[in-house]
């Protein structure tokens, strides 16, 4: 098999994430490239969560609609993922859940329970009914009593049941791989990456015990793919954190919020590495997070903050302050489903317009969006460099999907960039004198003097100001300062290399436009489409000059929001009509099949102007 997706579902806090990481590392050790998608509730323990590990013979960055193998660690998984396994795919489940009925699954959404009742024509269908439906759709059921196996192996190894059952995840992964005919060795190596000492010994013994048991051979098998060293497996949030370090970050603030927090906690945990001694401050709210970062930037530290949804709303005023006093600031925005608290742990691209426009008044801000994990690493560096080059706010857009998706990449793709271009005032000697920090310049950029620069002092104010930054309401001085600040946008658009502004991956009579995390899916979709091109936007503001690329094309946008914000932006900036808006706002990432189907319909000329994608569990 060249393309394989393994899904594991179970209660949150039950270790399914550990299981997916183990599976990904085991097949990774066996030479496969993988991407891992994580779907979870805003909950600590008990609610349904699942992960997909998709394998490919080259780096993978998108996900399929149907999985090849579903491992159900509880009954709820059976209920939620009916119709999600491809015909002749495999369902690995614990037969003891068959005793349950749909109404005995307390965390199952009523909507799902009612749909099942209707489908089976019963008030309370049993999980046996559900299993029959899997079988009817061509799925091969594989009963596997996880807990019983744990107890049996525990007894064999002389380990108490409670301790043996802690290895259920290893058992689930080992059983899956064993059924698939995958060798044991990579799994043992993967366990060594995950555990240490006695825990490792136990888990390795358990895996070996699972492999000793006879299992039926499946109709499809997973072979080794030729191991190559020099590969890494990491998530988007980790890549963004590493990119910030590579970009010289020295100060990071945050207030806990999903899904942005992963980045800051990664940084907090790694300050002992040379060059990574970033001061990370957990603040009382996002207002303090953004303003404290501005304070640190004013003192000369490369500073950033990271947030999501509601936190970004709170930052609007602080960002405007940074824009007004020309402080270099990076805000990393992990978008999630909005509005309000919305879907805290689900993906969306609903903050595009807010990132560009949010806040009162106008100031120059740069907005860039990362399309995949490598981009996240590169873009975090660019964001810091641009903030310091243009002495203003840079919003780095990511989303929940990208933040929590894991991917195997060649390590060499994560290379530090050599970026510079800061303009600073040289320290002076003698009695300190006022410095006209805000004297207008041709390109809008004036030498920055961090607080504490010897020999000078000056004032800054959030009010409109004169070149010394004393308050003024004079109309002429106002015009001069507004023009100085806004000039920086024109300068940035001129200086930022086109390769950092957009990439035309392929041209076509139908031209798809996208930004951010739709990149991986759309690039793979191109393999299944003819006459369809893809223009991926990296820089969203200042908006790149792309009008010439759109001439005479049938334009389609694909994005994760309700209204088609990118479509609006493209129309506003290019005066070209976007003919089709493909949108998705149920919090689940666009699948490969959805994208291909929608774009085929566009190509055939059969699609409406607005296409809503609704897949996902």
């Amino acid at each position, binding site marked *: 098999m060249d393309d394989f997706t393994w899904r594991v579902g179970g209660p949150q806090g039950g270790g399914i994430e550990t299981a997916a990481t183990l599976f990904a590392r085991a097949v990774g050790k066996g030479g496969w490239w993988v991407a891992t998608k994580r779907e979870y509730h805003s909950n600590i323990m008990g609610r349904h969560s699942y992960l997909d590990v998709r394998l490919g013979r080259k780096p993978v960055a998108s996900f399929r609609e149907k999985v090849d193998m579903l491992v159900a660690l509880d009954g709820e998984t059976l209920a939620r993922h009916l119709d999600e396994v491809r015909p002749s795919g495999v369902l690995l489940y614990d037969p003891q859940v068959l005793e349950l009925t749909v109404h005995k699954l307390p965390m199952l959404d009523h909507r799902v329970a009612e749909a099942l009742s209707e489908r089976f024509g019963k008030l309370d269908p049993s999980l046996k009914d559900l299993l029959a439906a899997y079988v009817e759709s061509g799925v091969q059921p594989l009963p596997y009593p996880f807990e019983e196996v744990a107890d049996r192996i525990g007894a064999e190894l002389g380990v108490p049941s409670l301790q043996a059952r802690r290895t259920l995840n290893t058992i689930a992964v080992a059983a899956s791989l064993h059924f698939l005919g995958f060798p044991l060795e990579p799994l043992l190596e993967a366990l060594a990456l995950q555990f240490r000492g006695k825990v490792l010994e136990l888990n390795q013994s358990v895996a070996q015990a699972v492999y000793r048991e006879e299992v039926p051979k499946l109709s499809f098998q997973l072979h080794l793919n030729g191991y190559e060293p020099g590969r890494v497996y990491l998530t988007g949030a980790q890549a963004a954190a590493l990119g910030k370090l590579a970009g010289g970050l020295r100060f990071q603030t945050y207030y806990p919020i999903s899904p942005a927090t992963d980045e800051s906690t990664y940084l907090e945990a790694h300050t002992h590495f040379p060059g990574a001694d970033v001061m990370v401050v957990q603040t009382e709210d996002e207002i303090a997070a953004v303003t*404290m970062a501005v*304070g640190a930037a004013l003192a000369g530290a490369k500073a950033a903050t990271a947030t999501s949804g509601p936190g970004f709303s709170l930052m609007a005023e602080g960002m405007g302050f940074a824009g007004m006093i020309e402080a270099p600031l990076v805000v990393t925005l992990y978008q999630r489903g909005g509005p309000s608290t919305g879907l805290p742990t689900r993906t969306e691209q609903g903050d595009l317009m807010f990132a560009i426009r949010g806040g009162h008044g106008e100031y120059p801000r740069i907005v860039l969006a990362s399309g995949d994990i490598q981009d996240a690493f590169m873009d975090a560096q660019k964001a810091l460099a641009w903030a310091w080059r243009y002495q203003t706010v840079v919003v780095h857009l990511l989303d929940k999907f990208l933040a929590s998706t894991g991917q195997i990449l060649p390590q060499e793709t994560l290379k530090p960039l050599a970026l510079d271009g800061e303009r600073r005032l040289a320290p002076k000697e003698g009695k300190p004198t006022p410095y006209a920090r805000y004297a207008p310049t041709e390109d809008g950029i004036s030498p920055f003097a961090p607080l504490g620069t010897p020999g000078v002092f000056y004032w800054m104010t959030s009010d409109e100001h004169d070149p010394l930054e004393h308050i003024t309401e004079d109309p002429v001085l106002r015009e001069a300062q507004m023009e100085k600040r806004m000039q920086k946008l024109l300068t940035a658009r001129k200086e930022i290399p086109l390769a950092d502004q957009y990439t035309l991956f392929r041209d076509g009579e139908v031209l798809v436009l996208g930004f951010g995390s739709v990149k991986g899916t759309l690039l793979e979709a191109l393999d299944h489409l003819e006459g369809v091109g893809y223009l991926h936007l990296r820089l969203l503001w200042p908006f790149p000059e792309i009008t010439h690329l759109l001439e005479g094309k049938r334009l389609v946008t694909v994005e994760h929001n309700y209204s088609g914000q990118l479509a609006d932006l493209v129309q506003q900036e290019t005066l070209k009509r976007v003919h089709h808006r493909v949108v998705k706002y149920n919090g689940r990432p666009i699948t490969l099949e959805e994208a291909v189907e929608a774009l085929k319909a566009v190509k055939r000329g059969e699609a409406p102007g607005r296409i809503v994608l609704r897949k996902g569990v």
Partner: protein
Amino acid sequence: MVELKLTDYKADKHPDWCPGCGDFGILSALQMALFELRLDPSRTVIFSGIGCSGKTPHYLNVYGVHTLHGRVLPIAQGAKLANPHLTVVAVGGDGDGLGIGAGHFVAAGRRNVDMLYILYDNEVYGLTKGQAGPTLGLGEKTKSLPKPNPQGKVNPLLLAFASGYTWIARGYAYDVKGLKELIKEGINHKGLAFLHVLQPCPTYNDLHTKEWFAPRLYRLEEEGYDPLIPPGLPPEALEARMARFQQKALEWGERIPVGVFWKAELPTFEARLKAYLPRYPEAYPAQGPEAPLDLEGLLQEFAL
């Protein structure tokens, strides 16, 4: 550094406060304190919030950052943490610090960053024409209010205490010399110092005027009040000191105390950060990276 005169600390900018405003007294006291401490203007930063008090930095010849309404404390803390060699003074009004910025006021106490915060308390929002501030008492009606204040007041000293400020004092805007001494002590204090300044607003506050305050104010030290809390004080002794602090902090009406109420030693946030950043504060964020990034080392945990 070149020897500076008192006048060198005064900016060539005319203050636009109302005649008789308490801000003038605070500004003079600040100017004198900076001069007497011989502070280097290029290493000293005055941060301010928004409101009449927010204009203070513009009138002093040191680095000045006139920030946002209510956000002066996080901004000042960010700068101080990024460059611990800066002398940082944050100033703001009662609405700025205890109304819109109250959350930051509390959180700053929990951290104990080494700086001074001066709260100008005139009980009204002057710049927006005299609405009730968070320190105006329940039922009080200044001439600028159409009806008596339906909201109660917060006690700044008690809130500072509850939040963990390690130096808590009160001064009076028209007692410039006394205020100057308090500012100097607050700047020299290791940790977060809070200076509450009673400040008449001659335009909008006709209740608590210069004439009202003058006969009521007295100095704590006149009564032999000792603010110093020595480390290792036994619990009963500490409780007694806390009770005395509370009694003095609540004293209002016939007699109103000024002076230092509380002075304790607790590790600063800078010192606490050593657990995360062993080379801090010798090496600090504003300096840039100390060593090239060990990206190889960091990527180890992700290697397959």
